[in-house]
């Protein structure tokens, strides 16, 4: 059914108005506010942002964490995506795997981080297990540090990585793999020379999605850092909720937003059509 221009305008009017009023305009307010101080227009907030090492260090720490999270969720996610789409033949088993991947995604970040608090605690399952096996003789400090944040966030992000890579892997024509096998390649060679290169768009898309989401993650770092480490989004929340400095909060928000926009532009340039979660994924 073809929609003419008038009908299109009628259909779009209310949704557009809603999104502009409650989404675009608020961003505009933040942007304007970041260029002000109590008396009027000023660049104070941005001067404060680049001045002093604290904010630069926080930004660096946020990026470092995000890079680790991306790497770990790729290492865990790729084999899973591969087995789900290219190895498992029975549909019920494949569905079960999807259920296992998607259920954590549908559980809040707090609950999932809470799970890791219990697992990583001094008397948690991991420490108890290691003590029992005898690898260590006193509990390791696994909580309230960088390690805890990376593990907890990798856990949150793995489903995104798996789903994005699986979406690409499942569309790879298996006759290409068969041809390689017929020509004498062993499974490993087939994977390295055929399957993996063809799945790279999914890997790139997954990595960018995970990195982008990690940079702006708030809940997991807050819970698993125990307040001992700070990431960008925690700084933003502090400014708004604890210090009531809306101007500086706005500048931090703009900085995070710009970072994200740059990352998204990359993913729009590199991501395949069928990848999930990016604005470029239209179909």
């Amino acid at each position, binding site marked *: *059914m*073809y*929609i003419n221009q008038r009908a*299109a305008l009628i*259909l779009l009017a209310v*949704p*557009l108005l809603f*999104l502009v009023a*409650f*989404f675009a305009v*608020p*961003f505009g*307010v*933040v942007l304007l506010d970041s260029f002000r101080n109590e008396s009027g227009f000023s660049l104070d907030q941005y001067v404060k942002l680049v001045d002093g090492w604290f904010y630069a260090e926080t930004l660096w720490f946020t990026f470092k964490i995000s890079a680790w999270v991306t790497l770990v969720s790729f290492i*865990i*996610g790729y*084999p*899973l995506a*591969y*087995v789900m789409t290219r190895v498992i033949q029975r*549909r019920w088993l494949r*569905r079960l795997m*999807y*259920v*296992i*991947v*998607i*259920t*954590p995604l*549908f*559980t*809040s*970040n*707090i*609950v*999932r*981080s*809470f*799970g*890791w608090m*219990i*697992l990583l605690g001094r008397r948690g*399952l991991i420490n108890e297990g290691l003590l029992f096996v005898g690898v260590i003789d006193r509990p390791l400090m696994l909580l309230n540090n960088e390690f805890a944040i990376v593990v907890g966030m990798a*856990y949150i992000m793995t489903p995104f990585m798996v789903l994005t890579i*699986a*979406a690409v892997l*499942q569309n790879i024509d298996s006759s290409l793999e068969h041809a390689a096998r017929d020509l004498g390649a062993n*499974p490993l060679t087939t994977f390295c020379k055929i399957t993996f290169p063809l799945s790279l768009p999914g890997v790139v898309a997954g990595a960018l999605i995970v990195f982008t*989401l990690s940079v*702006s993650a708030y809940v997991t770092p807050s819970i698993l850092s125990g307040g001992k480490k700070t990431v960008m989004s925690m700084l*933003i*929340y502090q400014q*708004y*909720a604890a210090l009531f400095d809306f101007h500086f909060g*706005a500048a931090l*928000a703009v900085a995070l*937003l710009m970072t*994200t926009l740059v990352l998204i532009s990359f993913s729009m340039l590199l991501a395949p059509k069928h990848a999930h979660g990016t*604005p470029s994924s239209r*179909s």
Partner: protein
Amino acid sequence: MMASNFLGRFILYAFCLLAVIFLVLPLIVIIGVSLTATEYLAFPPKGLTLRWYMAFLQDRSYLSSIGLSALLAVGATASALVLGLPVALVLSRTRSRINSVIAGLFLSPLVLPTIVVGAALLQFAAQMGFARTWVALYVGHTILVIPYVVRTGLASLSGLQLVLEEAAQDLGATRIETFFLVTLPIIKPGVIAGALFGLIISWVNVELSIFNSTAALMPLPVKLFNYVQYSIDPMIAAVSASTIYVAVLIVFLIDRLVGIDRFNSG
């Protein structure tokens, strides 16, 4: 050759088993802890009891938080459907140069930092005089859900056989009749699945809600978040475990509707 094949397979399966354990363990631990008979968190649980579930079901503040979260999720999803489906319809049926801009705008809440969306909404609402009210929460959650509706709407509509619509119109149906009697019933499973995805995104949200919450107006995830940072006990595990049951339920609903493995290819 055969031996190395076998070894490769074995390593792959072993690794996947570890990955699956990694994915389910934190959830199992919470469910386990919520059943413990001890006053402290114990896993594996020591003794089995449902008293922590009873405790939170008798706690009015939790019930009101759950009520608010459910209302927000359902309300936001309903308005996201009303706002998002027309957008998906226009985007799939017109070829305009600004289509990609419109799609980008409506899908952007997926990837922009939710914490910034929340901060922006607070700042805007403060100037407009509705900061920390249910209106601010409701509007924010609607924005969060819209992209899920638009995305699955687009996916469902692009797979649709246009001849069916043409047939209906040849038989005398108006455009509006065609949409409600032919198009909508066909895309329904996909749209419901997308709506369920959006529903759960609203249900679990902290980053956006936290800016516009008050002690009396606190969605469940925000309440849990505030609580978990200061103290943890088996009752919190029971509340958390209950949200896991909701997640499992929604996953199975989506599976029944569209097949969870097909959901990802859209």
